Structures are given as structure tokens and as C-alpha cells.
């Protein structure tokens, strides 16, 4: 992008488009809402821990929705929990992003037919940016999802949040 590689040349002046700088800042420090639901949350925690180290992508857990940028729906969403998740999402400030992690959050997973208590896909209540398949997905798969989200943020403009 030519943003940082000239940082210490040319008298410490960087010339860049506003959009590029904003997007770069946003995608480089995606703070996730510290929030786990089921076995996917174990993989998410492994992704945060030292072996995989989510922090090298700028992802770190925040225990409050008011200071979070991304919410990772990591596991089975019961109907009882769905009402709470919707409220957490509404408490997050814009711009906010959603990663749906694993089969349960994507479509209900193994509960798709007999799960009277399970929401069949988190996209029925909140808009999802990236779907990560797997049951549960390995940390590498979650990284792939995060990189996809970063790609998406890189193409945003100041005026509108890209939805496609």
C-alpha cells in the first residue's frame, strides 16, 4: 500500500488517501467482544492463546461491547441466548463486524431438525460479515475468516459500509 514503508523517509511525511488510512487502522486493531458460547469458543480461546496468537493480527478480547469492533459468534445459539446476543450487538458502536464461527452459528448445525431450542443461523437476527465453516473450525480456519474480514474492510469507503 506504500503507507508504512516510507514512514521514515521524506521528512516523516506520509501521503495517503484518508480512506486507506482509516481502513488500515480499523482492520489492524479489530477488538473482539470477549464472549464464547460452546465448543467453538474453546477453539477461539486456542486462537487467542500463545500457540496461535490472535494478537499478532491486532485482535484482542474486550469484555465490554462498548469498546468492541467485532463479535465472533462461537457456538450454538439457543433462542434464550439469541435475545441477549442481539442486545450485545446493539450495544456495540459502529463500525461493527460479525464473524459467524462454526456450523451451529451458520445454520443450526446438528440441531437443524430437532433443536427446538436452537436458532437456525445467527443471520436470522443480526447481519453476518464472514461465515467460517467447520465443527468446530480449527484456529487456522478462524484466521482465514479474520483475513477475509480484513480484506472486506480494506475496500470500505468513508461514506458507506460495504455490505457485499
Amino acid at each position, binding site marked *: 500500500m506504500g503507507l508504512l514503508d516510507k514512514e521514515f523517509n521524506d521528512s516523516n511525511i506520509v501521503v495517503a488517501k484518508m480512506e486507506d488510512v482509516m481502513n488500515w487502522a480499523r482492520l489492524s486493531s479489530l477488538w473482539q467482544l470477549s464472549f464464547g458460547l460452546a465448543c467453538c469458543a474453546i477453539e477461539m480461546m486456542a486462537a487467542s492463546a500463545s500457540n496461535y496468537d490472535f494478537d499478532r493480527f491486532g485482535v484482542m478480547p474486550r469484555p465490554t461491547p462498548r469498546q468492541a469492533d467485532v463479535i465472533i459468534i462461537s457456538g450454538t445459539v439457543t433462542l434464550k441466548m*439469541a435475545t441477549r446476543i442481539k442486545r450485545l450487538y446493539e450495544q456495540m458502536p459502529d463500525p461493527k463486524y460479525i464473524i459467524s464461527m462454526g456450523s451451529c452459528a451458520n*445454520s443450526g448445525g446438528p440441531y437443524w*431438525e430437532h433443536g*427446538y*431450542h436452537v436458532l437456525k443461523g445467527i443471520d436470522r*437476527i443480526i447481519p453476518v460479515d464472514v461465515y467460517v465453516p467447520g465443527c468446530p473450525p480449527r484456529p487456522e480456519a478462524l484466521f482465514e475468516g479474520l483475513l477475509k474480514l480484513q480484506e472486506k474492510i480494506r475496500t470500505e469507503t468513508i461514506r458507506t459500509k460495504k455490505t457485499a
Partner: protein
Amino acid sequence: MSAEEIYNLLKEKFGDSILEMVSDVPTESIISVNPLQINVVCEFLRDSEKLQFNSLMNLSGVDDDNSSKVTNEDGTVSISGGTLTVYYHLDSTILKHKITLKVSTEKDKPEVESVTSIWHSANWHEREAYDMYGFIFLNHPDLTRILMPYDWEGFPLRKDYENPEFYEGMKIPY
């Protein structure tokens, strides 16, 4: 003490409240008890010197799936009759013996005496059995739903349960 001896002891003490013993099962023998006398029987099982059942290992509900289907005049099918059963797995950690009790109730009026005052661990187990099957545990201190939302309708583990279409505006079927 063997199941046979426990059964004879109970039969002698409580007579008609003890209904029968089933032994030809792959598990431990099961003693049937009158649902409105179960608290008295359990108190004796806990306090008797010879028995000392100081631990309720598990309490669970079962839908016996013996209802009959009735076709109404307008073609709809409804369920009538049938029984629900509660199973109690007791253990004596002192005397190292076990026993299983069961009480059967009519599905239309599933009333069972609570054993919460005898073993406090029964409190949440009975709430779960109420939540899933709709048992009414008489004299339970707080008989409310424990897993499903408080405003949920119906009892999900009954065989004749049908999924609702929506919960708080969220579609439930796939």
C-alpha cells in the same frame, strides 16, 4: 442390602404405597411407588438405620410413549391418555448399596410429591423434570423453568410435543 430385602422392608412398612418390584431388567431392580407417597417413602429410606440412602444420585423424567392417538371429526389428530414416569436413583455411600425407585402418573394430571426437603439436590432435578415434561412437584419451594425461557410454552421432551413456529419474532424451524 439387596433390592429384594429393601423391597420387603418397604412393603412391610408402607403396604399399598409400594406397588411392585421389577427385577428382570438389565439395570438394578426398580421399585414402583405411589407418586403421592414418594416423599414419605424416601424419608424412611434416608433415615432408617438399615438403609441410610444419603445420596440422590439422579432424578429424571420419562415419557412412556403409551398415549393413544385419536382422530377427531375434523381430521385432526390429538393425543389422549398415557403416563409420565419419574425415576429416582438412590445410593448409600455409608452402606454401599443402591436402589432405583419410580413413580408413574397420568399425563393429564402429572402430580408427584417433591423430595427436595429430603435431598436438597432434588431441587434443580425436579425443576428440570418440570421444564421438560411438565411434572407438578407438590410442595416444591420454587417450581419454575430452569433451562427454557420463563415464557416458553409446552414441554419439549414429551412425545406429542410440536415445535412452535416463532419465539419472540425469531423463526424456529430450519
